[in-house]
């Protein structure tokens, strides 16, 4: 008999070895019952009808009963349905007699491989259909699908769909198979199947709507625009058939902006479009400093002028930088430094 010495470290249970906690169905069911009961208690507490107590009411009630000043919304107390809190997990894959449910269970990645199997089947059926059409001398359908507006699912989205971890290799293989399927001329039959794995990309160039000209009581056409720069925000109303007068907060620009540089900024949009003496402008501005207010009004005027001008000239204005919002704001001061970038004086000793 050989006495095997084991230390307490070996006997201790390795907590992390079994992976993330697995929630049984019974546990989730109990959680759902507790949630429903708790919902009714909460409704009673708040004095509302338990039958018509929605999730928004719950959120409001919890925010009222347990006020929290924490920054992260996820860290605050919340009461949600258990299906939203506990991540979806795979239930046990085999029945009472031990036989697994899925025919590809023994591969390890059953959902992924069954997906590949299905996709390959669609490919084969498309090829068969194509052969039939060729045999009957019928023309193959050539409606070109719009590939520009759609993208395939990302690896993470696919993992969520299959509830299984994928490797990069697996994902790329699947995408290659889908592309092969799409490339076939007779893939119209499989449109529905392919749509499950493609998503629409929102068109990036959102067409900025240029507002049409509005008309005054006197019949004069005018247009409004808004602009921001640093902390200043401005609104400008540009009137047609004017003499080039500009008013800011009730004052003339000569009084409001004594510095030439600011007035040049205001006149730039008009100068660019050769409409210096043709428009009257009334502006309101608040916040910021001298230069920021000038920049804000410049942007507001340029936006207002878009309605008076052709599309080509709008494009010219955009390329000149008149229509872009200046993103530069004051950078925050960091601890351990004197300013945003300036460091404390470095002393050798």
């Amino acid at each position, binding site marked *: 008999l050989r006495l095997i010495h084991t230390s307490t470290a070996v006997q201790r249970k390795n907590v992390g070895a079994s992976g993330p906690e697995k929630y049984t169905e019974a546990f989730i069911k109990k959680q759902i019952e507790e949630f429903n009961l708790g919902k009714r208690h909460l409704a009673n507490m708040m004095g509302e009808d338990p039958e018509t107590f929605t999730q928004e009411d719950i959120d409001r009630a919890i925010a009222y009963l347990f006020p929290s000043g924490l920054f992260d919304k996820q860290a605050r107390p919340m009461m949600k349905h258990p299906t939203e809190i506990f991540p979806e997990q795979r239930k046990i894959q085999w029945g009472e007699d031990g*036989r697994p449910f899925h025919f590809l269970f*023994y591969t390890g990645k059953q959902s992924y491989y069954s997906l590949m199997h299905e996709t390959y089947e669609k490919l*084969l059926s498309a090829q068969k259909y194509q052969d039939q059409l060729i045999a009957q001398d019928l023309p193959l359908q050539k409606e070109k699908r719009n590939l520009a507006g759609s993208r395939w699912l990302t690896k993470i989205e696919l993992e969520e769909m299959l509830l299984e971890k994928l490797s990069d290799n697996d994902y790329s293989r699947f995408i290659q198979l889908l592309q092969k399927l799409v490339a076939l001329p007779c893939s119209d039959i499989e449109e529905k199947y392919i749509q499950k794995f493609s998503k629409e990309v929102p068109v990036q160039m959102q067409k900025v709507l240029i507002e049409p000209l509005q008309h005054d009581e006197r019949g004069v056409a005018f247009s409004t625009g808004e602009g921001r720069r640093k902390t200043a925000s401005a609104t400008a109303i540009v009137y047609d058939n004017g003499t080039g007068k500009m008013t800011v907060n009730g004052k003339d620009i000569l009084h409001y902006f004594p510095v030439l540089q600011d007035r040049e900024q205001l006149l730039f949009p008009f100068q660019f479009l050769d409409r210096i003496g043709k428009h009257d402008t009334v502006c309101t501005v608040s916040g910021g400093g001298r230069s920021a207010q000038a920049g804000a009004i410049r942007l507001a005027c340029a936006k207002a002028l878009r309605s008076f001008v052709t599309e080509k000239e709008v494009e010219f204005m955009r390329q000149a930088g008149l229509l872009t919002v200046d993103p530069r704001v004051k950078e925050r001061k960091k601890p351990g430094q004197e300013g945003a970038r300036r460091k404390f004086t470095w002393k050798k000793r």
Partner: protein
Amino acid sequence: DDKLLTEPLNHPDFFNVKELFTLKDLFDARVHLGHKKGCRHRFMEPYIFGCRLDQDIIDLDQTMQHLQLALNFTAHIAYRKGIILFISRRRQFCHLVESTARDCGEYAHTRFWQGGLLTNAHIQFGAGVRLPDLIVFLSSLNNVFQPHVAIRDAAKMNIPTVGVVDTNCNPTLITYPIPGNDDSPSAMELYCKLFRMTIIRAKDKRRQDEAVEEMR
């Protein structure tokens, strides 16, 4: 219930698998064609009929006997509700094998074999997994022309194996080898058809016998 299980074992061919195939069927499906003489495995020499223009020809009489034994064995396993796993690492026939398994109601594995699938099953799948009771190899080599790891693992886990062995394969560790061609599509379709028919036949027989028992 006991009688249900012991009765089939008293007959040499309870499920009559001999009628499923003839020598002509095997010949038409090109089962007798082996690889070239250079690829020949030493242990396959007893099963080879001869060599013509450097290509080995497999002895179909021996194939008939082995096939009958193998099909009989699979039928008995299916009759006793065992789990059958089809393995083939040939990319050409991956879809065919998976569809066959799905049609029978059994299982298939035609993908990359992860090391611990059989030997480390309780950790990979979870506690309480039931391992396959029979493994059928429709092609006994993997993509690098080496013997499939599952042959050795099944032998380690005491799981009986049935396998189609070509002239370049090692038939030693397989319990019921079937010397035959594993490269032609016609041969593979024939094997899939035969296995599918035997398993479905065995399962139907089981259902009938259980119904008869219940009626008594």
